[in-house]
């Protein structure tokens, strides 16, 4: 997922699992999805905006160019998705669109998505950011590449810096401090001298650092299981000032003015900065569930087993995506209430929530309940769903090919 704030329009654009989305954030405590109908693309991972042009990319849909028409609307202008194209991060540089691509490098397109060239030397690019006339490329083969883009259609590499393995994305502030999200590490680079970038801090991320945004002296890292906020005012002494647990997986962040936006898979969140205390703190102010496609529901049966009237005053769950009705009621002895719990989800990722039932029960005025939400998924006893997946030579294997054998299946990620 990618989060791109558009401060002039008071919108945020998302490259999301469901496709390209636009969110009205004029009031960050009351965000609204403005996209209706079928979003463009599917499983989109990166976005970049320049005035009226928004481009989103993903492995499945390739590159889609949208023209913004105001109030969160757009029209689709064109697509670029040749065979073998694996687009990652991208950036507009004047009239040119620089797209980092795996196993390829940075390809340079013009506004009509015609290929104009590439960044010399880059061969396996993950992300790119630009400031003034300098672009910074994360290349899995060449590390951090510093490129002079004063002529946007004639990029000139200036320097390379080895930053090790696992780099995912990068961001830069106005002092030339580059922060790289690199899986198990967060790397801070002083790039204020373009010819001589230097690593000044290399921290353990404590998770899987996936995306990063930087604004002034603050760096925010989407760290998969949590979101981390760092103070980079003294880059060589970068330190952690905040940590927010993810609901699902924290996969993208953006800092805009005093708001931190976090893409947490199914849930888009806003946090407000409070800079008044000893150190900056972020407080959650709103969340938005993204395009519910799956409805899951279950019924909770509440029964009064006692001899007196039972007043249930509140039923609440820690996860705000769960809707509960009714949440308060009175039951005579032996009477039953059927409480409907439902949740609307945009992906198949399972999650869990703690819930509490508050009542006038003398022994247990706050009873706990633990819910597993598993919209499509498996459990012991189910028939394992069939699949059809290639090996590294391209031959297709189906689970059904192995009928009659015991199959030990291990799922892993090489990232």
């Amino acid at each position, binding site marked *: 997922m990618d989060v791109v704030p558009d401060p002039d329009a008071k919108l945020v654009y998302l490259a999301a699992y469901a496709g390209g989305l636009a969110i009205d954030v004029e009031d960050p405590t009351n965000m609204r999805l403005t996209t209706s109908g079928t979003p463009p693309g599917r499983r989109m991972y990166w976005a970049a905006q320049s005035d009226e042009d928004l481009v989103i990319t993903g492995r499945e849909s390739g590159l889609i160019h949208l023209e913004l028409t105001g109030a969160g609307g757009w029209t689709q202008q064109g697509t670029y998705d040749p065979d073998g194209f694996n687009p990652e991060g991208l950036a507009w540089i004047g009239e040119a669109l620089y797209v980092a691509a*795996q196993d390829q490098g940075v390809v340079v397109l013009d506004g009509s998505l015609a290929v104009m060239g590439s960044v010399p030397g880059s061969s396996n690019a993950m992300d790119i950011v630009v400031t003034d006339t300098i672009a910074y490329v994360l290349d899995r083969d060449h590390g951090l590449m510093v490129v002079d883009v004063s002529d946007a259609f004639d990029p000139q590499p200036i320097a390379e810096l080895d930053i090790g393995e696992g780099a995912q994305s990068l961001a830069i502030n106005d002092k030339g401090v580059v922060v790289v999200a690199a899986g198990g590490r967060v790397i801070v680079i002083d790039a204020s001298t373009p010819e001589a970038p230097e690593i000044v801090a290399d921290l353990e991320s404590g998770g899987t650092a996936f995306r990063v945004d930087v604004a002034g002296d603050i760096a925010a890292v989407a760290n998969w299981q949590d979101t981390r906020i760092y103070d980079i005012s003294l880059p060589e002494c970068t330190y952690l000032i905040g940590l927010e647990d993810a609901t699902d*997986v924290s996969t993208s962040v953006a800092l805009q003015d005093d708001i931190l936006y976090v893409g947490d898979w199914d849930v888009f969140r806003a946090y407000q900065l409070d800079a008044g205390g000893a150190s900056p703190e972020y407080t959650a102010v709103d969340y938005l569930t993204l395009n519910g496609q799956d409805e899951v529901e279950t019924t909770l049966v509440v029964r009064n087993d006692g001899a007196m009237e039972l007043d249930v005053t509140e039923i609440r769950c820690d996860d705000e995506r769960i809707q509960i009705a009714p949440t308060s009621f009175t039951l005579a002895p032996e009477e039953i209430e059927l409480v409907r719990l439902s949740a609307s989800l945009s992906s198949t*990722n399972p999650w*869990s929530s703690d819930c509490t039932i508050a009542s006038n029960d003398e022994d247990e005025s706050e009873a706990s309940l633990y819910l597993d939400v598993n919209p499509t998924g*498996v459990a012991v006893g189910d028939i394992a769903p069939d699949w059809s997946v290639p090996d590294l030579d391209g031959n297709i294997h189906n689970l059904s090919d192995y009928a009659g054998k015991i199959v030990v299946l291990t799922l*892993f990620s*090489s990232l």
Partner: protein
Amino acid sequence: MCAAELPRLETDVWLPYQDDGVVVIAMSSSIIGSENPTDLAEYIAGMDLTMPVLADYSADVYGDYAFTDPQSADWIAPYPREYVIGADGELLYVSADVDVPAIIDVIEANR
């Protein structure tokens, strides 16, 4: 995210049981979407695996085979995920931990 368990599954499960009606499959299934064949091949190159290695680039299997991890109420670990499927297709074992002895127990009980 690591696949530290793959060499162990190779030596402790695949090699001993492959002629005994058991197949061990390592499937890369990344929901991030930025995994590609070259990186994956490099990643497993040093492991000398003879078990089948498959690549679910669209992460469909990740979704279809999702489960909540009873050990960690607050945090559902996406990887690794271990499954044992019986000869008749029924799921016998599902876990977010790499517990090779437990996997072998399940195999022995169902052979």
